[in-house]
């Protein structure tokens, strides 16, 4: 049946269903197809903390949102244009996020009395008229799936489980997605269970055909590919990009990678991924707790590996003492914090960026460490490399602050050329570096705390190096020789030196890129600067676009280095009358900027466990204009 085709520049779809309904898989496949099709896209998964919360209930709802477009986009979308709801709870849990006029596709099969009650509905919303403001499509997805796959003789339950593929097929038809990659995926995924494989493929194609043959949907949509820079792309989540970045850092530094970790949401997938990369000489050690995880990583670093520990906020709390030891030992170490909702256990599966000040100050004593934060899922790759460069060059623990949104969200990533990746030189010490009074012919002693005059880094002398035997520890060390020292003046010197070492990293940071089209005009232009860090990059940039779209000038700068702050930041801040700092916390970067630059930064602080919306950022900017 020939159908009207409407061209759109962007669409936001949210797939929502019960935790057991396979919504994450459905969303991921739709994403993959859109990526291959050439749209720009970003995704936002959202799932409960329970493994399988009670079926049919609001807490059990799992969803996956994808925003795809014919141009470059920055967020997973403030609000869905289309909601696919597999049961009453999924409808109810997500309806409030939909703008009036949005499209809703529901699987009618589950809209029974019991299920409606479980979701807290007194009346059937499909009948009550409460969805009148939306474009509602009632489809018996389950029923049609079961019917379609009955030839395979699966149990009714198994048959019904393919309904997500039916839904996927339908949406693929609706938005003109290529289907080969999903069929290929299903073939690989269920290679060992042919009936399930075939049932899923059939459900998928039946869903597509249902769109094509029935008249339920009067319009198909077309979203043209986005212009992308030449290169090879893949869609990638933040956790995967981060794991790849760590492997790349190991390869580029020539070091073996040692991960000491304890599972915790939303960081565990980095452990899972790295445990599969043994071919790179990667050792993963699942420790008895977070302290042992970082302890082993520090031991491996001492012994000459790229030591890494991955965790989330509660784990960082436990690791604080050991991070302090790494500061005292001045050994390279990566501490990856995939931030989640806090305080305490908080909201394990939700995103937040409230661990910045913990990264800065969460240790006893003056224990400064560099902090690096990626801004988008794919940027986790480069940020991991940068964190490794700093850790190895300055012999210091580095905190890499990702978050739950980056971790599980995805976007297309242009795969870099290996030659474009930085080379990192571990520069191990191999010979004595100090001349004793007794010596007449050159250096004859090894001083573990004799510093590089430029970086202030100390030598990294690994066990097995003859003549470099030395002892280090957590007690204060004498400048240079590194033996225990209780001398007051030495302590003051060492405290200041450790701070100076971290501060000097700023010497190697590139100038910040200020996004301010008005600056070129030379007529003053933007008066408001929006400063962000981490995963708020997308929403802020999108918010800035909205404001510019409304005809106003506004500037944006995004920080990847939180400690030390870039040298040119102070001067940039001074150029603008007002500074807005949107954060998913109560104002942590704000605090640092206010204290350091005495600038009256204004915060937009919303702590919902979800990314900020571009709309609320635009509003906040407009209030300052």
């Amino acid at each position: 049946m020939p159908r009207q085709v409407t061209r759109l520049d962007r669409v936001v779809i949210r797939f929502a269903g019960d935790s057991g309904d396979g919504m994450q898989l459905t969303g991921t496949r739709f994403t993959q197809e859109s990526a291959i099709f050439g749209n720009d896209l970003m995704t936002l998964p959202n799932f409960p903390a329970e493994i399988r919360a009670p079926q049919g209930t609001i807490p059990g709802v799992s969803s996956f949102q994808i925003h795809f477009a014919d141009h470059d986009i920055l967020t997973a979308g403030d609000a869905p244009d289309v909601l696919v709801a597999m049961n009453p709870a999924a409808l109810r849990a997500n309806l409030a996020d939909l703008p009036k006029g949005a499209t809703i596709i529901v699987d009618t099969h589950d809209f029974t009395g019991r299920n409606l009650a479980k979701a807290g509905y007194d009346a059937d919303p499909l009948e009550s008229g409460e969805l009148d403001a939306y474009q509602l499509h009632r489809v018996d997805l389950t029923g049609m799936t079961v019917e379609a796959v009955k030839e395979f003789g699966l149990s009714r339950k198994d048959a019904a489980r393919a309904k997500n593929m039916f839904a996927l097929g339908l949406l693929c038809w609706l938005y003109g997605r290529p289907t080969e990659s999903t069929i290929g995926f299903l073939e690989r995924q269920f290679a060992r269970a042919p009936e399930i494989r075939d049932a899923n493929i059939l459900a998928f194609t039946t869903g597509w055909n249902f769109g094509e043959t029935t008249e339920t949907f009067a319009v198909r949509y077309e979203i043209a590919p986005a212009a992308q820079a030449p290169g090879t792309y893949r869609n990638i989540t933040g956790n995967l990009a981060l794991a790849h970045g760590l492997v790349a850092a190991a390869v580029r530094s020539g070091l073996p990678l040692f991960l000491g970790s304890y599972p915790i949401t939303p960081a565990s997938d980095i452990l899972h991924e790295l445990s599969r990369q043994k071919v790179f000489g990667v050792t993963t050690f699942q420790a008895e707790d977070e302290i042992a995880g970082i302890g082993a990583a520090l031991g491996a670093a001492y012994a000459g590996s790229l030591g890494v520990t991955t965790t989330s906020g509660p784990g960082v709390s436990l690791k604080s003492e050991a991070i302090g030891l790494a500061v005292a030992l001045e050994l390279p170490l990566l501490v990856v914090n995939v931030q989640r909702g806090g305080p305490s256990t908080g909201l394990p599966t939700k995103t937040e960026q409230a661990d910045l000040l913990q990264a800065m100050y969460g240790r006893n004593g003056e224990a400064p460490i560099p902090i690096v934060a990626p801004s988008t899922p794919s940027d986790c790759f480069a940020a991991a490399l940068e964190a490794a460069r700093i850790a190895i060059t300055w012999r210091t623990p580095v905190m890499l602050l990702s978050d739950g949104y980056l971790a599980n969200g995805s976007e297309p990533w242009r795969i870099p050329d290996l030659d474009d990746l930085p080379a990192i030189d571990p520069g191990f010490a191999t010979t004595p570096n100090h001349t004793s009074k007794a010596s007449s012919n050159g250096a004859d002693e090894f001083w573990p705390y004799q510093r590089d005059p430029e970086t202030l880094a100390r030598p990294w002398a690994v066990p097995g190096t003859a003549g470099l035997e030395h002892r280090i520890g957590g007690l204060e060390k004498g400048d240079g020789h590194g033996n225990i020292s209780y001398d007051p003046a030495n302590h003051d010197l060492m405290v200041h030196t450790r701070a100076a070492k971290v501060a000097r990293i700023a010497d190697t940071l590139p100038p910040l890129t200020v996004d301010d089209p008005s600056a070129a005009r030379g007529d003053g232009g933007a008066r408001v600067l929006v400063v962000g860090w981490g995963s708020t990059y997308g929403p802020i940039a999108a918010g800035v676009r909205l404001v510019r779209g409304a005809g106003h000038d506004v500037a944006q700068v995004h920080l990847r280095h939180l400690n030390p702050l870039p040298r040119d930041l102070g001067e940039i801040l001074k150029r603008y009358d007002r500074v807005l700092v949107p954060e998913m916390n109560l104002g942590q970067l704000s605090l640092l900027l206010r204290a350091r630059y005495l600038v009256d930064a204004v915060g937009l602080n919303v702590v919902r466990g979800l990314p900020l919306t571009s709309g609320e950022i635009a509003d906040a900017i407009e209030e300052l204009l």
Partner: protein
Amino acid sequence: MTAEPSLHPLGSGLELVPTSHEPQSGKDYTSDQEVRWCPGCGDYAVLKAVQSFLPDLGLRRENIVFVSGIGCSSRFPYYLDTFGMHSIHGRAPAIATGIAVSRPDLSVWVVTGDGDALSIGGNHLIHALRRNVNLTILLFNNRIYGLTKGQYSPTSEAGKVTKSTPVGSIDHPFNPVSLALGAEATFVARTIDSDRRHLTSVLAAAAAHRGAALVEIYQNCPIFNDGAFDDLRGPASDDRILRLEPGLDVTVGDRTWRHDPTAVDPSDQFALSRLEDPVPVGIFRQVERATYDDEAREQVASAVAASTATREERLAGLLNAGDTWTVV
């Protein structure tokens, strides 16, 4: 769960550590740092014993690492001219695990106290034992917290009056040997600071063991717990001490058996560990079982061996994996 027989015959604890061709003496193992224990502290005797024993191993000095936690005994690494780390309280077994797993060519030692190992560090200790990481762990048991000036420890006897228990401790103590056996340890021994010969022979066996070897050393703290082991010293102690040897007939309650430290089932060894009079010293258990670090390296090595590509090529492969598309 009985310990399984080892998956493949294990070598010595030190077989992958390079040996030295130079003759060595105790002096080579003595660092330039002044020893700072109290006069009469049992730690001196152990230090001397270790310094004189290390040359016997014939290893390259730079391939030996001592890791300690915090406590009087944990100052140990400063006094040895090897690589060393004086880390944080209780965490030495974890740090040493990272060293041992990442470097087969190192001989890794852990020095710890009864507080460090059994109080704050108890969990790391039992996990290192069950994993059987190739470490030699010296637990200096003076039954007191020395460095913090005399609080009772997890091995202090019930009723002990200390700074923090003015009317007597009410904690039932751990028996470190029983605890280790319950934690799947493959090598467990006990010795005493003052008996240099016994100490050295136990150290030799512990160092030779491939896997985690726990050596409990009864150590006198003359300042805060003086004389705790006095009845186990000197000639008069003969009937208070049971010197375990393989094949020795031992009697506990109404049962007599031949002591076999290599028995896979630790039950008889455990029964011996419950003896209090006489106090058994020597090796309770010494069995072979695959070590965590050997197996971890084996998994990595076989993955690496299975690929003929260079590391760079593999990286390119990794980054380009999955569904990709190309824009020209």
